[in-house]
């Protein structure tokens, strides 16, 4: 078949046209957000988390009952329109106590994660950046401390220092920061030999500027993931400790203490155990799913 030449036409090359990026440019975090949004389970976790936090803030005001007021004429009531989640053995409203417990659980989780973040970034950052003997010594110290069984140490500290919110957070963070320190150290170690760090050094930036402007922001992805996954761990530990009788003291309500109180009555008043139990599980679930989703969204190479 013959095709005549006049059917073709020279378009010409426009350099500006060839270099044009047709897709709008995305910042790293926008890209992460788009990937995260595609993950249905993670989005579900995020919504769940938002609801839980909303209820932790406003839940206690939704009922006229107070979490700490005893009402012995109305003890062990089943859930009803009056007491939405029923009452416990001292007649306290379980709905109010549940959301009071949510505040404490989420507070403990976030506080423990933030302290871990602070110590871990400092320790890991210095260790990784300095390198050599400093690194060796700092990491050996972390290794030895890491060998100490976590929960046993926490139990021991709670026995010795006495029960309370502060003690609990302290006990959790004594070995909790090591994980963060290791991750930050690994990141800093691989980043510090990059050209842009060298360029920054040549321009006269000092160590703290390089750390704050280059190394830490570029390590943000694994730091964030580790933090989100620390929170459910801390929430679990609080519930566990309260459940073996080492938690907060009454009338403070945490999910662990509520479950502990409800256990002996499980045969007759199961709701006293079930409401805190369900919310512990839901919260840990939500944080875990969001953490997993974040990890997948931040590091596309790790995706299945």
């Amino acid at each position, binding site marked *: 078949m013959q095709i005549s030449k006049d059917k073709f036409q020279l378009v010409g090359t426009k350099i500006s046209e060839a270099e044009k990026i047709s897709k709008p440019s995305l910042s790293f975090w926008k890209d992460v957000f788009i990937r995260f949004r595609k993950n249905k*389970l993670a989005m579900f976790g995020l919504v769940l988390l938002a609801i839980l936090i909303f209820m932790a803030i406003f839940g206690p005001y939704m009922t006229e009952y107070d979490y700490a007021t005893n009402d012995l004429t109305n003890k062990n009531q089943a859930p009803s329109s009056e007491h939405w989640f029923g009452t416990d053995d001292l007649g306290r409203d379980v709905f109010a106590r549940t959301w009071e417990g949510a505040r404490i659980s989420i507070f403990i989780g976030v506080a423990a994660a933030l302290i871990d973040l602070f110590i871990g970034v400092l320790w890991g950052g210095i260790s990784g950046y300095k*390198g050599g003997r400093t690194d060796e010594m700092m990491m050996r110290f972390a*290794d*030895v*401390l890491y*060998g*100490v*069984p*976590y*929960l*046993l*140490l926490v*139990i*021991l*500290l709670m*026995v*010795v220092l*006495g029960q309370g919110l502060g003690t609990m957070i302290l006990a959790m963070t004594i070995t909790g920061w090591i994980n963060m320190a290791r991750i930050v150290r690994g990141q800093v*170690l691989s980043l510090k030999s990059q050209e842009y760090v060298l360029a920054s050094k040549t321009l006269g930036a000092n160590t703290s500027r390089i750390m704050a402007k280059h190394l830490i922001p570029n390590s943000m992805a694994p730091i964030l993931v580790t933090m989100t996954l620390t929170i*459910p761990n801390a929430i*679990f530990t609080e*519930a*566990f400790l309260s*459940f*073996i*009788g*080492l938690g907060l003291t009454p009338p403070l309500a945490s999910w662990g203490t509520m*479950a502990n109180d409800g*256990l002996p009555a*499980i*045969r007759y008043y*199961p709701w006293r*155990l079930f409401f805190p*139990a369900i919310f*512990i*599980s*839901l919260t*840990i*679930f939500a944080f*875990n*799913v969001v953490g997993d989703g974040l990890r997948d969204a931040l590091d596309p190479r790790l995706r*299945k």
Partner: protein
Amino acid sequence: MAKYIGKRLLYMLISLWLIITATFFFMRIAPGNPFTSEKQLPPEIEANLNAHYGLDKPWYAQYGDYLLKVVKWDFGPSFKYKSQTVNDLISEGFPVSFILGMEAILLAVAFGLILGIIAALKHNKWQDYTAMIIAVAGISVPSFIMATFLQYFLAIKMGIFPVARFETFMHTVLPALALASTPMAFIARLTRSSMLEVMSNDYIKTAKAKGLSQGVITVKHAIRNALLPVVTYMGPLTAGILTGSFVIERIFGIPGLGAHFVTSITNRDYTVIMGVTVFYSIILLASILLVDIAYGIIDPRIKLAGGKKGE
């Protein structure tokens, strides 16, 4: 290899020494002395008691005595139960916990592997999603909550299993299941991701190309290599089962070491808390070391000489 084991052993001993020292000093600064709960004792009797338990010596002598005793595997008397020593409690309670723990480990490994392998083979199909939802649920529901749910629905409501106590095999099913739930979920996730990674390797393609069936490829080629990350999880698994037993034994009324430990915490029975903590730490550290060594033997690609500088 010998150098590596020696190095690890040294770290283990340092960690252990740290724990023993910490327990010793923690218990010294803990409020009250072992006899405060008794009626006001005449000073002579209290002095006698102190002398009997060696509490009249200066702290460094007591510390030395304690270290020496631990080395000789003697954890001293219980202050609350006068006729029992901590060693008695351990030899009485540990076998029970051990049986339960072993059952739980078997359950966790068996079901975890099955779930993980199914999920990987049926990647992105409904089997995969179901298995992963079970896994996420298993990780999210703490063992003590799983235990109470199982107890309430399967034992109290339906009466399929006995509610509590430790007598027949049927009595151990629910507690073992509760203990196994979280580690099972972890193993399922680990197995799935490592199976997926292994299945994309070239030698699997070769096996397919030479006409092997899916079953043979999975069993003979994929699983063996996919198991490696699961082996590393055995250390944390032991830890999880051990600490899980504290609450599970209490919920199901099982006279194991975990239940004794929690009781001693409530009673503030300091020598028992100390002794059992040290005992648990020894078991944990030893099992983690064993797992690491086993890992090195199973996978010769792992260089055990320890990380070089800057790695």
